[in-house]
């Protein structure tokens, strides 16, 4: 029982985790990309389409990553090369993604999808309680954990990570030191987009192997909230994603059991929880001030 609950929590948490860890890198470089929802939904529709056409979920995943990165590149071109307002451009990306995915996906509605098979690690998966939770999941689950480890290591233990953080904290000083601020930000934005696309692919290839319009249902936005919740720390994103996974699975279980609360109220819980958590975190002004990348959302035009 506990084991199956853990597994379902992981399936709900994984897409949030992947998208949020990507956005964390983007925000650490000083860019606020509010288009996560749009890139994610594009990843979902592309991943689904490629997987059912080729029969290979892996090609679907690959395509989802590519399309997420391509959308992010578009965002990068506007905000970094043309210095447009990041908030507005991120919203544009979300609206475009929702529109385009709805259009492409119309042909996929009702079609059976291709589900990615779990990768069962022998012996370890027979461990009691945590065995199947940790060692018999979809491959993307392992990738999500590796992403956290990798990003954490990259940001805090490598020179490139330090460079990226310096660009996010003070782009003028970084520029004066000869760091290519715009190039670093492009790389971060594209990485974030690839992650968002991958998260979308997870939704349509693992979570519910089918295409439903707007199937991301606000997960991209929750991922953005998770980054704030985690105060821009990779391991806290992991904790936050599983917390939210638990909330959304908890409400689903409550709906199945038939708790005497209207299902709509239960469905609203993850969104309300997001608001509550944001309030709790931002109440502590000092904590958020210390951790927020100082140049987050600020445009950079090199002076010459």
């Amino acid at each position, binding site marked *: 029982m506990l084991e199956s609950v853990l597994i379902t929590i992981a399936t709900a948490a994984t897409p949030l985790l992947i998208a949020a860890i990507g956005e964390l890198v983007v925000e650490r470089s000083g860019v606020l990309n509010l288009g996560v929802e749009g890139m994610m939904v594009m990843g979902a529709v592309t991943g689904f389409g490629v997987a059912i056409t080729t029969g290979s979920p892996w090609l679907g995943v690959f395509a989802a990553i590519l399309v997420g990165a391509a959308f992010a590149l578009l965002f990068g071109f506007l905000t970094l090369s043309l210095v447009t307002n990041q908030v*507005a451009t991120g919203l544009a*990306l979300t609206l475009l993604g929702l529109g385009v995915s709805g259009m492409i996906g119309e042909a996929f509605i009702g079609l059976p999808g291709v589900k990615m098979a779990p990768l069962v690690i022998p012996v370890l998966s027979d461990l009691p309680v945590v065995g199947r939770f940790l060692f018999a999941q979809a491959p993307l689950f392992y990738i999500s954990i590796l992403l956290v480890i990798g990003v954490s290591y990259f940001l805090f233990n490598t020179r490139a990570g330090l460079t990226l953080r310096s660009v996010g904290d003070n782009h003028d000083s970084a520029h004066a030191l000869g760091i290519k601020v715009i190039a670093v930000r492009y790389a971060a934005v594209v990485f974030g987009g690839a992650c968002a696309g991958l998260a979308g692919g997870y939704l349509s290839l693992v979570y519910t192997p089918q295409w439903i319009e707007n199937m991301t249902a606000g997960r991209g936005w929750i991922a953005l909230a998770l980054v704030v919740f985690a105060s821009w720390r990779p391991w806290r994103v992991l904790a936050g994603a599983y917390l939210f996974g638990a909330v959304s699975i908890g409400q689903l279980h409550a709906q199945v059991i038939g708790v005497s609360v209207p299902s709509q109220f239960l469905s609203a819980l993850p969104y309300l929880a997001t608001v509550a958590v944001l309030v709790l975190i931002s109440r502590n002004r000092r904590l958020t001030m210390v951790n927020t990348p100082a140049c987050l959302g600020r445009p950079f035009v090199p002076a010459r």
Partner: protein
Amino acid sequence: MMRLELVKRPQHSVLFSAISPLIALVLTMIAGAIMFSILGKNPLDALYYYFIDPLRETWSLHELAIKAAPLILIAVGLSVCFLSNNWNIGAEGQFIAGAIAGSILPVVFPDFQTWLVLPLMLVMGVAGGAAYAAVPAFLKARFNTNEILTSLMLVYVAQLFLDWIVRGPWRDPGGMNFPETRDFHAFAILPELMPSAGRANWGIVFAVLAALILWFILRKTRKGFEIRVLGQSPRAGRFAGFSSSRMVMVAFLISGGLAGLAGISEVAGAIGQLQPSISPGYGFTAIIVAFLGRLNPLGIVAAGFVLALSYLGGEAAQISLGLSDKAARAFQGMLLFFVLGCDTLIHYRIRLAGRAMRGGEVTTNA
């Protein structure tokens, strides 16, 4: 490889602030034509059905006004928010909150039938939308909570609440179990302007009035100056004695109230009852309207009609060409991209520097 280089203009370009929305529209049409060709449709036909066909008949102009009214009302309110650097993106939720609050009288008290009902409904709609917008505003002013995320989360909550109330307590007792409220009685219906010619109702009048009033406030009053100063430089605003936390509340209450008015006008006008879904994303499309109108209330009136046209055109192209009505949403998203991109021309000269690019501009490390 060519490199884009931005050179800041000493002053913003008057020419480009006037024509950049038009350039954006033209670019969107070109991109749209390419998109339609990819979908295997004749691009000229598609553009014709999108942008010309809906303008050919009187009844369809009325439909245009019906679609433009909520877009303009919401976008005018959003312009106050965006100008003062408050990112309310939950107008869709405030629209729904206004529609629900305004529907209390005709749904819960259907026997209360006097001419007072409609004005009261409109007031309650405004109050409902404003109250719903007050939540993210209060959280931002008091706890410094990110208003973008909270206002958006509340959209989902409002949609679920509407779904519950029309399927549950407010379901029409005589409605064959359909998930909808009873039809509004005659005193609760927003009258049509010219019933013999088409369905357009007073909503469009409210929209234009709201735009004129806010244009006056933003351009001619001290409050408008305060809004713009706080938006452009919160620090300068503080030195001038303006309170940014009070501005958060003001901006959100104005935009929430207008979104609420749009909501109740839509329900009391075009729809005539509450249903599980009452908006084709007006609250989000209005963001595009606000930017296409360059955050100027008068520009927003024009922009509202352009976006309304894309909704109608989407329907026309679907009927005539079998083109997915989802294409309209894609179109709208592209438009915002081009609008934002073209706005760069107002503040910068763009130069192409023919120098080899240094460093990997595009590196995917995923």
